[in-house]
């Protein structure tokens, strides 16, 4: 079994090895932290000239996931663009993004990197409430589904992007190509999901339980 089915607050979900989350009852594919335009933003700021292909690579994977899951709706949980100006500098990826928005109903949740309106087809919201669950960029009052932290999980000497599934929060890994990550036992994530299940991504999705190690007293 390469995908991983689970329930969160009475709803069925499927965690996909790509890091996308499918919600059958809503016919929706959810992804977090696409960070489109990241390489352009770094170059603009005088940083490294990274290979300028990551927006294209991310959108290709997203297209493939939409096709494979059969989703009609796409919900992007914020930080879809690396900053508001990155929206303008997508270059070759622009056409691909527009076509994707034509084929699917898109809900754009605003993130800390992309708070401004971006003029693409679809609905732009700060957060929304569906079937008793909040969808937002940064986890808040639960139960909610969010992104922002780019969770990762260490297992058998590997460090992989992972979904974190706790009592009140379901946190998605980042879907964008050039995104780093934060370990599940980092204080920021420990505060949200001190124990639960990590669903690690990669070739297959594997569910692994965890309990954040207790920190020694300072």
């Amino acid at each position, binding site marked *: 079994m390469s995908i991983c089915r689970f329930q969160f607050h009475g709803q069925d979900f499927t965690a996909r090895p790509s890091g996308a989350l499918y919600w059958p009852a809503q016919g929706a594919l959810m992804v977090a932290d696409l960070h489109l335009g990241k390489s352009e933003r770094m170059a603009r700021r005088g940083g490294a000239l990274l290979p300028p292909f990551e927006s294209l690579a991310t959108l290709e994977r997203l297209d493939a996931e939409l096709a494979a899951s059969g989703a009609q709706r796409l919900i992007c949980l914020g930080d879809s663009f690396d900053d508001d100006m990155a929206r303008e500098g997508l270059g070759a990826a622009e056409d691909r993004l527009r076509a994707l928005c034509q084929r699917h109903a898109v809900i754009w949740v605003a993130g800390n990197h992309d708070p401004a309106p971006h003029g693409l087809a679809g609905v732009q919201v700060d957060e929304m409430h569906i079937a008793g669950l909040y969808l937002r960029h940064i986890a808040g009052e639960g139960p909610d589904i969010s992104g922002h932290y780019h969770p990762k999980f260490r297992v058998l000497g590997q460090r992989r992007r992972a979904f974190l599934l706790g009592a009140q929060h379901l946190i998605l890994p980042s879907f964008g190509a050039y995104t780093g990550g934060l370990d599940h036992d980092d204080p920021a994530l420990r505060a949200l999901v001190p124990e639960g299940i990590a669903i690690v991504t990669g*070739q297959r999705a594997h569910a692994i339980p965890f309990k954040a*190690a207790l920190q020694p007293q300072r």
Partner: protein
Amino acid sequence: MPALDRTVPSDLPAPLSGWFAAQGWAPHPHQLDMLQAAGDALLIASTGGGKTLAGFLPTLAAACAGDMAQGLHTLYVSPLKALTHDIARNLARPVAELGLDLRIEDRTGDTSATRRARQRVDPPHILLTTPESLALMLSYPEAPRIFKGLRRVVIDEIHALAESKRGDQLMLGLSRLRTLAPGLRVAGLSATVENPARLARFMGGAEVIRADPGPAPDIAMLQVSAPPPWSGAGGAYAARDVMRAISEARLALVFINTRAQAELFFQALWAVNDTNLPIALHHGSLAREQRRKVEAAMAAGELRAVVATGSLDLGLDWGDVDLVLQIGAPKNIKRLVQRIGRANHRYDTPSRARIVPANRFEVLECVAALRAVEAGELDGDEDAGQGGRDVLCQHLMLLACAGPFDADAVYAEITQVGPYAGLSRADFDACLDFVATGGYALRAYDRWQRLVQRDGLWHLRDPRAARDIRMNIGTIVAPELLSVRRGPRGGAPLGEIEESFAASLLPGDTFLIGGQTVRYDRLRDMVVEVTPQPTREPKIAVFNGLKMATSTELSARVLALIGDRDAWGALPAHIRDWLALQAEIAALPRPGTMTCESFLRAGRWYFALYSFAGRNANQTLGLLLTHRMETAGLAPLGFVATDYALLIWSLEPVRDPAPLLDARGLRDGLQDWLAENAVMKRTFRAVATVAGLLQRNLPGQRKSGKQATFSSDILYDTLRKFDPDHLLLQITRREAMRGLADFGRIEEMLRNRSAIIHSRAPHVTPFAAPLLLEAGRIPIRASGSERLLEEEAARMMAEAGLTLDGLGATRGT
């Protein structure tokens, strides 16, 4: 002391010959040759041959003759910071005794910012530095003024530099210096090498001056009271014997291959130091203050022995060292001879060295190595080949930091030095394009180019970028290091450990550093905080694994020794028994065959192949065989290659090695397997860092950057998919192939050695035991690791009694 037995030639200024006489020394002929050399010179001499003084004699002579203006006259470059410090101290004495008004300063990463700033305004007469610090100086707009009056460059330990990218960087720096100071003369100082002409070419041409090699070194195995263990590299079994040898010598240097081993061995020695002899520990993971203390104590004659790793062995002032002890096999013969060197000022006495093999396999290696030394055979030198293009990219960025440059002039400049003499203009332009625009097939950064051309000259688009570029200088892509301090809040620094090692520690774990056992408390602000815990045995003692290759020549000698029962007479009895046991449980490798064995251990199948074909060949075989094993469904998990053998571990056993070792179709479907391998990805990371695509993780930035860094593997995969001919991928492929043998050679070896001897051993064999502890394991991320992950995940879910439905639905957890 040698008497002053020769007429001092007239071109040695009187004050200098007087100084020599006052020491009771005569200048060595090679020292005078260096003084008389008309142009650039390369001195080949063993340690203790007065090499450094030979390099500085022309400078001292110029100073004695009053032929020295204000400003920088001589630049000394060495691969080690510690060496610059030491040279400064050693030069201070003759300069003072000669009454010369010379300012000598060192400049390294350890030099304070204020001092460095002052050096840029008012440089000393003699500046002692490293290749990285020189590159940094050349990147400042003041560089032309600083180096305008430079007359001499002395490059110490040039044989060591020539083997790495640091040498490429230094030669590029030298090409710049030659333009800034046209009359410049260069002196290269090298230990004994097989092919001095090649080293001279590396410098861009030089007159080779050879010192009299002196009497042959006295090298033998140390007589030990107990046989060495089957495996292990620590040598602790011989601590008492080593202690006895130390007590009989005036000052002994004890060399051991890695820092962790040095820590453990020092502890073992300390435990048997019944008479409390003053012995010390010195290695690169220790805090600078601590290293300086040991160096000073050694120079002052207060020590009887120093346990050291490579940080000490590159020609530091050996003072009165009269015995060198090498724990563990010396890996290559050249290194052994270079290491042993000679005690300073005792050039006419043979140096004494004793080898302590750490395990039984190393006894074979030692016997073979000693025979090679007797026969006067050094290992062949690695042909350095063309300089790294990633290093050139970095150089071009640094030049742009110093000021606008003309591409034609820079091309003419860099092709004067050896490593870049053969670089085509097209390759040069590709490097320039990468630095300026990223060099991608998709031209995305026209607005944000890093370099722009105006009036024919290349400028930094944003001069503020110079700071970041300077921070990323250097060609050593080391693992991230974290400093270790005692107690919370700025306790005493104890040294550094690798970040990956720190990540493996849990609070309460104990490990060794600086010769003491400490307990890991916490990681805070990128500092590892520990508490000394003298009573506890260290729980974990592995950090900084360093892998050194034996030469192919030595490997062949070891195989010949194993295969020749008549030669076994030279071996200790316990080694003969051990060989006999290997023959009984599995098989002894014979020349002309592929001898291999399989055994099961802790749930993994191991397949060991004893080719004795050298590390590159075994590494290549590892890639080829794991590919075939993956295709055959054997689920390989990883491999490690040594000079003698290849060890592969997998979830399923190798039942018949014949199809794996069939030369036919060896390359089929191999491209993706190679491209996705960890060897490739590691190489890419290093290349991308040197070329400036990846920023080094700098201490200040890392505290805050939560999602700032992402793995270089992602960049590698993206480039491979969208821009497979990109410059950095070209460089990566080329560099990775250097660590691999040519496929044609492997196919030929497999055809010529078609006799395959495969044993199924009941357990680990005598020969395989040391392989299990080898550093440098290459993981295979394929079906095997995925299967393990799946099993582990299922096990943990079952153990926790969890299922995936209903989380958070009704329960509070």
